[in-house]
């Protein structure tokens, strides 16, 4: 027995030494050029080089994230399925997005917990990976990236594990058409990229919004086997310099590790890490060495206004609708940023819209991929607080209203337009200078932007200007590029009949199903109004107009 113990001790010692040698970091002497990270024990599969984050819309920050008092720790694992195992396949993106993220948001919407999540309530990474175009994934199941995977969830949906279990993957080129009918029942409404900011990430988790994340891994990550907090990479000798991997961000704890830590769920089975998950230090997570992309997804599109929903049964009400909006280059000004907009807003309800409602028409631009980048181009106020009935005039900076552009002490009778009532014409013309923006933007005119009026239909308050395909317009230093201005107008539609409900003027096409919805834009405007940021934007615009000496 004594000899047996000695032998056991010797074997254990040898095992420890062997293990130690295997972990030996040697950063300057590893070549880190292992061309196939999947040669290691655990497979990866995020083809990060193909990811174009600039094409994925940023989530609109409505202020609920990271600004208030967040709980010191949150754990969403109770809404996640059991830890998955991708095996030898480079399917991590499908596991992160399909199996983990989609299963969890579906579970949260329906009130399921982990114990409820049997195969019929788990979503299949095999189905998702097979459904991704071969152009967007490596041969022999060798990786993909987030955008095509999330696009599949958005446009096609995903089948359940019960229907498509994770076996018989072959070379991942098989057809998934036979179960696409079931998949169509499980789509997402949109997906958004998220800033890698500690408080914002915590805010999403505290808001029950788990995230799919793309990370770069070091050798120590591959060998993790405890609930210690990962604070740095070791070498890349075994895993290679491009070990990119997709996982799910599911929790945080301010008191874990030196600075607090995020909890991440992996798809390498229960034996790896802390029974399948790992804690990663806040600062290391966002510091530019570990996480390189984070995404949230929603099963439901935002409603227009949760406090004032569309109610088609309302009668005896008002309904404002922008119409015949035309944005054009100002040919009489050599400045290529000089433009003018023609517009009208009709009341197609059966009651008069009173000036006493203090409502407004706002015209703004916003970045197609980051709506937090926006600006005001026109602010047209209808109020009885200024002048006498029937009068109108320019708003002065620091003066009436919120220091916007124009005021009108005018009521709008049923089935009449603001231009008819104010100037007796079919539309207003408003000159403006586009700020020096560069990138893809939409222009949008919003009637009752601050939601002062309870309308028959809140959904038809926005009028978008895009290119003829519904895609955003490209501006270079404020100049519209690639289109003649006339092509963004749409005067072909007839004004809807009085009392016609749920009309949406010039909605963008479905060319980009993941584009911001009108509801998101309107909710953003309302939020910016509440925080005072919109006022600041208007003042900024007025100052720029004055400095340009525009009328």
């Amino acid at each position: 027995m004594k000899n047996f113990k000695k032998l056991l001790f010797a074997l254990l010692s040898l095992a420890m030494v062997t293990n130690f040698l295997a972990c030996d970091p040697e950063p300057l002497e590893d070549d880190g050029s292992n061309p196939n990270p999947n040669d290691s024990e655990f497979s990866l599969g995020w083809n990060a080089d193909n990811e174009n984050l600039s094409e994925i819309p940023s989530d609109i920050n409505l202020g609920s994230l990271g600004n208030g008092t967040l709980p010191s720790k949150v754990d969403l694992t109770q809404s996640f399925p059991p830890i998955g195992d991708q095996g030898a396949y480079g399917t991590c993106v499908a596991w992160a997005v399909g199996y983990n993220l989609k299963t969890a948001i579906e579970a949260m919407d329906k009130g399921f917990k982990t114990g409820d999540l049997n195969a019929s309530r788990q979503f299949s990474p095999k189905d998702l990976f097979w459904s991704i175009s071969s152009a967007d994934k490596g041969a022999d199941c060798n990786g993909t990236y987030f955008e095509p995977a999330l696009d599949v969830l958005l446009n096609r949906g995903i089948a359940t594990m019960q229907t498509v279990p994770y076996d018989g993957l072959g070379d991942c080129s098989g057809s998934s058409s036979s179960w696409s009918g079931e998949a169509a029942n499980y789509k997402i409404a949109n997906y958004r990229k998220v800033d890698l900011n500690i408080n914002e990430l915590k805010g999403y988790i505290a808001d029950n919004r788990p995230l799919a994340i793309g990370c770069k891994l070091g050798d120590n990550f591959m060998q993790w086997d405890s609930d210690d907090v990962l604070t740095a990479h070791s070498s890349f000798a075994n895993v290679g310099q491009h070990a990119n991997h997709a996982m799910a961000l599911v929790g945080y704890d301010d008191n874990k590790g030196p600075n607090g830590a995020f909890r991440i769920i992996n798809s390498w089975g229960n034996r790896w890490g802390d029974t399948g998950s790992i804690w990663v230090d806040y600062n290391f997570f966002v510091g530019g060495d570990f996480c390189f992309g984070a995404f949230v997804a929603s099963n439901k599109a935002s409603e227009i206004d949760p406090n004032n929903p569309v109610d088609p049964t309302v009668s005896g009400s008002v309904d404002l609708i922008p119409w015949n909006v035309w944005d054009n280059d100002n040919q009489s000004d050599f400045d290529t940023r000089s433009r003018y907009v023609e517009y009208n807003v009709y009341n197609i309800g059966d009651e008069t819209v009173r000036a006493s409602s203090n409502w407004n028409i706002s015209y703004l631009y916003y970045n197609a991929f980051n709506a937090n980048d926006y600006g005001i181009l026109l602010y047209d106020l209808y109020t009885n607080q200024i002048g006498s009935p029937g009068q109108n005039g320019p708003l002065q900076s620091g003066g009436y209203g919120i220091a916007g552009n124009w005021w009108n002490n005018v009521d709008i009778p049923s089935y009449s337009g603001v231009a008819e009532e104010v100037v007796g014409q079919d539309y207003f013309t408003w000159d403006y200078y586009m700020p020096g923006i560069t990138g893809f933007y939409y222009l949008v005119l919003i009637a009752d932007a601050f939601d002062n009026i309870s309308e028959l239909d809140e959904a038809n308050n926005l009028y978008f200007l895009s290119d003829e395909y519904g895609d955003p317009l490209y501006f270079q230093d404020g100049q519209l590029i690639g289109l003649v201005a006339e092509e963004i107008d749409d005067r072909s539609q007839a004004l809807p009949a009085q009392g016609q409900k749920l009309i949406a003027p010039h909605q963008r096409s479905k060319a980009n199903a993941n584009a911001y919805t009108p509801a998101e834009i309107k909710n953003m405007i309302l939020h910016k109004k509440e925080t005072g940021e919109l006022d600041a934007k208007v003042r900024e615009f007025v100052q720029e107009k004055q400095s340009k000496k525009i009328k």
Partner: protein
Amino acid sequence: MRWILMLFLGLSGLCLWCSNLTSNAEITQEMVSADKILKNLQKGEAIYLTNAVISGDLDLTQLPGQLVNLDYYVTVIDAQITFVNCEFKGKVLAYRKGDKTQHATRFTKGLSFIECTFRKEFNFKGSVVDGLASFPGTYFEEAVHFETATFRHDANFSKSIYMRDLYFQECRFAQAAQFMNANIGGIANFQGCTFGGDAQFGVAEFHAYADFSRVSFQEGVFLDYTKFHDRAVFSNVLFKGRMDLKGGLFEKDASFKGSLFYGKTRFFQSTFDAALDLSGTTFMTGQPDMNELNLKDQKNLDLNDARVNQFQPLELTF
């Protein structure tokens, strides 16, 4: 008698001259630009400076480097570098990360910063030091980075003072590592380090979180009279040699969870004001010396699955 008087006067004069020399040196510290040091290094010349003030950023990654893999450059410095009682006004960098590249430094000779003061960032992440690494009595005002560095010879950080966080994660100390009497004001990150020789942390003082998780001590580790004013984490550590913790002070939670102790281990006369987590530990060479252990509240002791000689449960009596 006359000779004795002359000798006395001569010695007095010599002392006075020496004293003046010292005070003159204190008053007129030599100003040296970092650029000049870089130029000398580029010529392969050794650096030896005392009582100097170094102006500008000393960025060693500006020296030509060689591409060692896809995006990783290494500058190799073949000259001995010695600074004694010098003050560095700017950053001192041996590591730089660009958009798509990283640049680190290898020192094939010794690297000594003795009783120096660093006013700005000190970043030696990923460095390899083949010779002696000496930083005794050195004072760092800003964060210090040595992540994944390799010290092939002895490394001496005794009496060094760190006003901010210290990053030594995944370092390899091939031989002795000396942190005796070090004073660390910020977070001390030693996660995943390997200490190939003795690791001396005696009388050191850790004012913030100390993370020694997943460290491998191949020889002895000495923590005698070391003070931890914040949480101390020694979880999943491999102690292959002796672990000496005599008279240590842990004012906040201390965790040795999951650690393996192969050598003699003693917590003799140490004080634990908060929790002591020994769960999952294994003491291969018998009962650790817990004599005169001062545990403020025994309810804060976690011995779950702690074992002696692999099979016997660890039991402590107070």
